[in-house]
């Protein structure tokens, strides 16, 4: 599937059809500490946006706002024209069904096996029969290259397998939007590349809009249509991968080179 050509602020696709997600002036603080300080960003239909940033930059907090897990102090999150921050609980639940989210450590239910984890949303929100559920679960496991692990217990899985089962659970309901929270954290480079490969395949083969947060630049360049840099609760740079490398912003350059900032050294 050809990827949408992107421009720094809003992709052509977003300009044409309206964004899938529009984040407007998002602010959030915890205990007097401002974590998000006025974020504005659009995500186009079918786009893969990757948000990078250092530890404590507010990446996880931001992505949790997108699905309504955290309520902002002010600002708006518009999904398909509906404001998630103003919607009543029933609308919120309905909007959440458009999302699939993969969590940092998978967040798999350890009281269930792999099959039951992936079948959970299907049992909860559809009237599919057992055979259809089994077929869908196996299809999802095939998509993440883990055929035949359905009856494994969650604690038998390696870190990489957990993430992929988490992906399978996230795509089980064929969501329109996929969110990935640090999909590579704590994984070795080879497993990390496998995870990226699975994300790229999903990006290319499924009709989804993706938002991924990571601090792994290699991963970001592999899976992104656009990369945004979050620093101190603000988006400080945003560009397609090929332009992102040459951005003049000193923080971006330091981040790409993996070098400490002068103030951090001092």
């Amino acid at each position, binding site marked *: 599937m050809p990827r949408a050509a992107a421009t720094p602020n809003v992709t052509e696709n977003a300009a044409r059809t309206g964004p899938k997600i529009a984040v407007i002036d998002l602010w959030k603080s915890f205990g007097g500490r401002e974590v998000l300080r006025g974020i504005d960003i659009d995500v186009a239909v079918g786009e893969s946006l990757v948000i990078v940033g250092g530890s404590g930059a507010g990446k996880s907090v931001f992505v949790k706002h997108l699905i309504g897990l955290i309520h902002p102090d002010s600002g708006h999150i518009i999904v398909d024209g509906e404001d998630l921050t103003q919607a009543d609980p029933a609308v919120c639940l309905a909007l959440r069904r458009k999302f699939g*989210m993969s969590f940092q450590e998978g967040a798999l239910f350890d009281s269930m096996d792999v099959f039951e984890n992936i079948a959970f949303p299907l049992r909860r929100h559809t009237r599919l029969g057992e055979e259809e559920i089994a077929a869908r679960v196996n299809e999802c496991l095939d998509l993440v290259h883990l055929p035949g692990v359905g009856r494994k217990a969650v604690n038998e899985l390696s870190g990489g397998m957990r993430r992929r089962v988490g992906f399978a659970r996230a795509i089980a309901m064929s969501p329109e939007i996929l969110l990935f929270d640090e999909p590579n954290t704590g994984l070795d480079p080879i497993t990390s590349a496998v995870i990226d490969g699975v994300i790229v395949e999903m990006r290319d083969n499924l009709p989804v809009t993706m938002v991924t947060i990571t601090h792994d630049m290699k991963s970001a360049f592999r899976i992104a249509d656009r990369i945004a840099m979050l620093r101190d609760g603000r988006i400080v740079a945003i560009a397609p991968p090929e332009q992102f490398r040459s951005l003049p912003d000193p923080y971006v350059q330091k981040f790409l080179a993996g070098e400490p900032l002068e103030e951090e050294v001092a």
Partner: protein
Amino acid sequence: MSAKKGVTAGHGLLETLGRRSLAAFEEIGRFFFILYSTVHWTFRRPFDWHQWVRQMVRVGVDSIPVVGLTALFTGMVMALQTYRGFERFHAEAYVGSVVSLSLTRELAPVLAALMIAGRIGSSLAAELGSMRVTEQIDALYAMATEPIQYLIVPRVAAATLMMPPLVALADGLGVFGGYAIAVGLMDANPVVYWEKTFQFLDLNDVFSGLIKAGVFGLILSVTGCMKGFFTTGGAEGVGRSTTAAVVMASLVVLVSDFFLTKILF
């Protein structure tokens, strides 16, 4: 200088007092939030019958040995103590009445609730707490599933519904324990003991005890779920929540026991 120190100490004391009061109000608010949300979500679709049954087995059936043993030995000790005491003024015949009344009205519901607070309150807090810190509760939200409905409603319902039958069983075992000791060990007349056991016992005594049991089940499960649901701070936080759940549930059971006794009897 010392006056300044005194003012600073006073400020510190007020600050601590203020912080503790706020924390206490926050805790009360959370308790009623979970209680209200649980009632709200209990009567909404989808109904997780499998979860209800699973939790009822966990709270009810699996707790039979611990509650049964507690009641049995409490009845035995009651009979032993009261028999020795009543012997002094030749009132041994009333041991059965004292054992049955104190068990059904007070001891069986309260002791069963304290045992369940230790067994179930702690495990609810630990279970929900670890689900919180491993983002499993967030995952439920993300899958458009209300965690209060899926996780808390079946657990609270199970504790509320299973406590009365557990206490009914405890009543029976406690009375039997008392009978066994009085008749078997103290040579009390079995016919007189049995007759006196029921002579002053009203159905109202038993039912009030069972109502207490249901309320205790509700309170201790809401407390355990609340401590787990609002856990922060990783594995250490789960440990803190678990301990706090048992302490708080036990205290709330004892405090509410006073008010329930005042209302019911």
